[in-house]
């Protein structure tokens, strides 16, 4: 599986994501700078990491979503490529329009940083096939703007199409319907606020995020 991780000014989970990909695939991912206009050839998956791209100016992820590399990212996704956006990466993906909805300021107004219990809402995706639907896992969250919102029609559609990937157990930020992560219509783009890449090593305090990366590797091997 060939992976790349996009790096914006202000990304701070790019290394964590690269380590998680390298552990799962045995191969270091390509690190792609935001000013690049093309992604490397032959990629299976592009990671959009957490952080505070462009200082969260204007809106979280708004400036990053208009960076040159994101045109290539959207084209990659539209060709059927796989994309994983975590935290700020999720915000970037909603800002590009690859995922529906938006992430607003946490309802409690505080930055929330702690281990968070999640329910795996579907195992029907290349990101979650290593879990069973209904599994409860714990991975870290660390965000100020993770309050997922979308209009009623979008929420109905996400539910009808089984596109909620993860739900919070004990809602930390006010997200509608406890949504922590959503899939694109073709199920190949996942955005999530929690950090699976920060739960892949015993020294992280837990390894329950590792199955996201293992699921991807297994899906790509079967493809």
């Amino acid at each position, binding site marked *: 599986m060939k992976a790349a991780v996009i790096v914006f000014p202000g990304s701070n989970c790019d290394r964590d994501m690269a380590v998680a990909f390298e552990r799962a695939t045995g191969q270091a991912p390509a690190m792609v700078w935001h000013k690049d206009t093309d992604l490397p050839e032959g990629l299976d998956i592009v990671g959009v990491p957490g952080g505070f791209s462009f200082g969260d100016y*204007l*809106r979280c992820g*708004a400036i990053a979503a*208009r960076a040159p590399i994101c045109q290539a990212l959207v084209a990659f996704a539209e060709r059927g490529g796989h994309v994983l956006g975590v935290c700020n990466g999720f915000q970037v993906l*909603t*800002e590009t329009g690859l995922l*529906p*909805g*938006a992430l*607003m*300021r*946490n*309802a*409690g*107004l505080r930055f929330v940083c702690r281990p968070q219990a999640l329910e795996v809402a579907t195992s029907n995706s290349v990101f979650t096939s290593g879990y069973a639907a209904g599994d409860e896992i714990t991975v870290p969250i660390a965000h100020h703007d993770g*309050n997922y*919102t*979308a*209009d009623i029609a979008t929420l109905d559609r996400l539910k009808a199409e089984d596109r909620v990937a993860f739900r919070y157990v004990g809602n930390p930020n*006010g997200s509608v319907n406890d949504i922590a992560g959503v899939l694109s219509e073709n199920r190949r783009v996942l955005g999530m606020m929690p950090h699976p890449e920060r739960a892949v090593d015993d020294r992280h305090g837990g390894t329950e995020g590792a199955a996201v990366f293992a699921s991807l590797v297994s899906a790509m091997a079967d493809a």
Partner: protein
Amino acid sequence: MKATVTVMLKDGVLDPQGEAVRHALGTLGFDGVAGVRQGKVIELDLPDGTSEDTVNRMCETLLANTVIESYRIELE
């Protein structure tokens, strides 16, 4: 010329920051503040003759996230 863009959360979208401001005003003794909505104002210095349509496109492509925000443009 100058354009002023006011970006607000759409009606019906909960505004936790506005709500916190409303609460703080109450704490300071300003009774009867029924609601506070917090938005942002963006001032643009533009070449004379820039059309409202151009500013509109700036709003649609970057300045506002129309999933949750509405915007208003004033040209001077």
